[in-house]
């Protein structure tokens, strides 16, 4: 076991797969010579060569589209968007070509699209987005969003091995802030939810960076026993785990860093309101970023992103319900 940052864990997972499976290749802007904007693929060019670590032109549709082509003839491309935000420029290839291929013609598209996402460091409106709900709403795409170093490694390996297109959301704000013991070798984390802390009075459901916000906010909360459920995988969504937590806790707060409307949290809330209705002892409470672009200046950004205080407040209020 080595202690790795979330970022190192992703690199480690990618490297394992590059070493063990020559079908795997990396593509993206500045991922080779520079090692990637965040240095996730640092050293890859040296180890694996420019055939398998491709510095591409600045063209996101090109990256996703050519990855699809390579995938259907037997490769396992891993594409990096320099920031998740730029997937808007490759959106069509992702949702229409990759997402619908298997349903339409039984042809699998084993690509992984790495999406450095999320805010919290003054990235501004174009370097802070959490686009996962767009993918969740597009049939045929898997969507993963780890919160820990361990899961980041295990899920990136699972993503590469999955025969389907996978959107892998790696939260930039966790890259160097989060560390953990990570097992060596190649292994997969299942695409299911994980109880990050078990409890019985209330459950906070979150994923990505918000798991840490949830844990911090509820570490001590009026002596209540608060469960934190880390979704890890958004598609498939572990409905059973969600409903199970709700059944045990009866109160639920759903936390989203994405803009609130039609976010993942909305889907989770809708699921609970329909299938967990009888277990509920209070309103299905959401905490999320309002429908506003993510501002650059720290006081504005802090006002937008869900923080520890907001989560505490929501939990306290619901506990008191």
């Amino acid at each position, binding site marked *: 076991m080595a202690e790795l940052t979330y970022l190192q864990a992703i690199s480690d997972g990618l490297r394992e797969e590059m070493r063990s*499976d020559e079908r795997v290749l990396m593509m993206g802007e500045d991922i080779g010579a520079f090692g990637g904007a965040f240095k996730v693929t640092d050293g890859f060019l040296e*180890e694996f*060569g420019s055939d398998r670590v491709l510095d591409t032109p600045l063209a996101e549709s090109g990256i996703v589209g050519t990855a699809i082509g390579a995938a259907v003839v037997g490769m396992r491309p891993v594409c990096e968007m320099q920031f998740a935000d730029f997937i808007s420029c490759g959106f069509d290839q992702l949702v229409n070509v990759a997402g619908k291929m*298997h349903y339409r013609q039984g042809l699998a598209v084993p690509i992984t699209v790495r999406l450095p996402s999320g805010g919290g460091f003054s990235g501004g409106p174009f370097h802070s987005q959490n686009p996962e709900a767009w993918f969740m709403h597009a049939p045929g795409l898997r969507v993963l969003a780890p919160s820990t170093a361990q899961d980041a490694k295990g899920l990136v390996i699972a993503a590469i091995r999955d025969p389907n297109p996978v959107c892998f959301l790696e939260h930039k704000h966790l890259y160097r802030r989060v560390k953990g013991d990570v097992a060596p070798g190649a292994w997969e984390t299942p695409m299911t939810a994980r109880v990050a802390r078990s409890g019985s009075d209330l459950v906070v459901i979150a994923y990505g960076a918000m798991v840490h916000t949830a844990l911090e906010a509820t570490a001590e909360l009026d002596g209540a026993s608060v469960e934190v459920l880390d979704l890890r995988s958004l598609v498939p969504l572990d409905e059973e785990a969600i409903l199970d937590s709700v059944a045990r806790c009866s109160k639920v707060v759903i936390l989203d860093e994405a803009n609130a409307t039609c976010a993942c949290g909305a889907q989770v809330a809708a699921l609970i309101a329909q299938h967990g209705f009888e277990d509920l002892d209070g309103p299905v409470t959401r905490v999320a970023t309002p429908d506003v672009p993510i501002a650059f200046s720290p006081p504005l950004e802090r006002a937008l992103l869900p923080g520890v205080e907001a989560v505490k407040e929501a939990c306290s209020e619901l506990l008191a319900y």
Partner: protein
Amino acid sequence: MATQLARPAYAEDLPASEQAASQRANGHAPQATAHAPEATPHAPDATPLTRDDRIALQHYMLLMRAIEERAMSLYRQGKVPGSFYDGRGQEAVSVGAAFAMSPSDRLCVLHRDLGAHLVRGVEPPRVLAQYMGRAGGLTAGRDGNVHFGDRHLGCVGMVSMLPDMMLVATGMAMAFKLRHEQRCALTWCGDGATSRGDFHEALNWASVQRLPVVFVLENNQFAYSTPLELQFAVDPVERAAAYGCAGVKVDGNDVEAVFEATRIARERALDGGGPTLIEAETMRMHGHAAHDDMRYVPPALLEHWAARDPIETYAARLEAEGIDAAALQADVSELVERATAAALEMPMPDPSMATEGVFCEGEAEPLGDGRAPWSAYADAAAPALARASEVA
């Protein structure tokens, strides 16, 4: 230093054809003569077409037209849901280009290119079933019209968004190059589709990486109702050079000219010479789709092109060589009647299948090889045909 990909370990997981291709690239003897033309990828430069090839070219063009005519009448009878798109007048472009491709090449086939599917070995009843949304159609009713590709025959079905497949073909070529395989990707693209960003990203990317890919620009004078002059100020084939891509223009109504341009482009691709943009000038002789009466097309333009019908002009050429073109037509008519009867007998899909298969749950199944009827690929044709018949 960089890992050498001299003999990729993953080649074991590839289907037979992809293995063979990899092995050839790595100096292993090809299995028997299954891919002979690729072991000697340089086909002779002069008159590469035999008499039988010529018959085959005409056969596929006739078959495309006959199927589409039959489908149009099925459409009018209400048996084809949605709308119906055909490629009348453009038979030479799809047949000529597809005819130059080897079994292990890979094709992304467009909406006016039924001929290419037929060349690759798709059975006519399945095409008609596809149009009618039957269970036996190539997408089992999930997609319609020519939005299909038979993955068992090395084809990837297009998406509607034009020209997205240019990037997919570019990506295939990227894999071929990376694996040092002697294979080529090909796709078609319309004159209208040249205006979209993906056209640019594909041409630029393929040129920068000198990828073995061929783009056939099917200039049929219109994009739906939009004429060329509203689409571009300069013929897009002129752009090829500015990307670092070979560019050629051919008579798209001359099936041998299209074949020859594609054959040369494919050789260039396999030789490491990078991509080629072939512009085939032709005319969409029907409306954009069945509902379109084409009143925006000047009648004189239609007349001009009607006189250059690719099938009729080729028939005259064949007749001059002593081939009975009328007999070919008769064969095709009968074939299509049988195909129609077979398709009409196929059931509609079972509604319970509607939600199946969004995700691939098992192992990814690879693309298979297509049929390659050109005589230069003669030995390769047999296994592909066999595989084609496995499909149904």
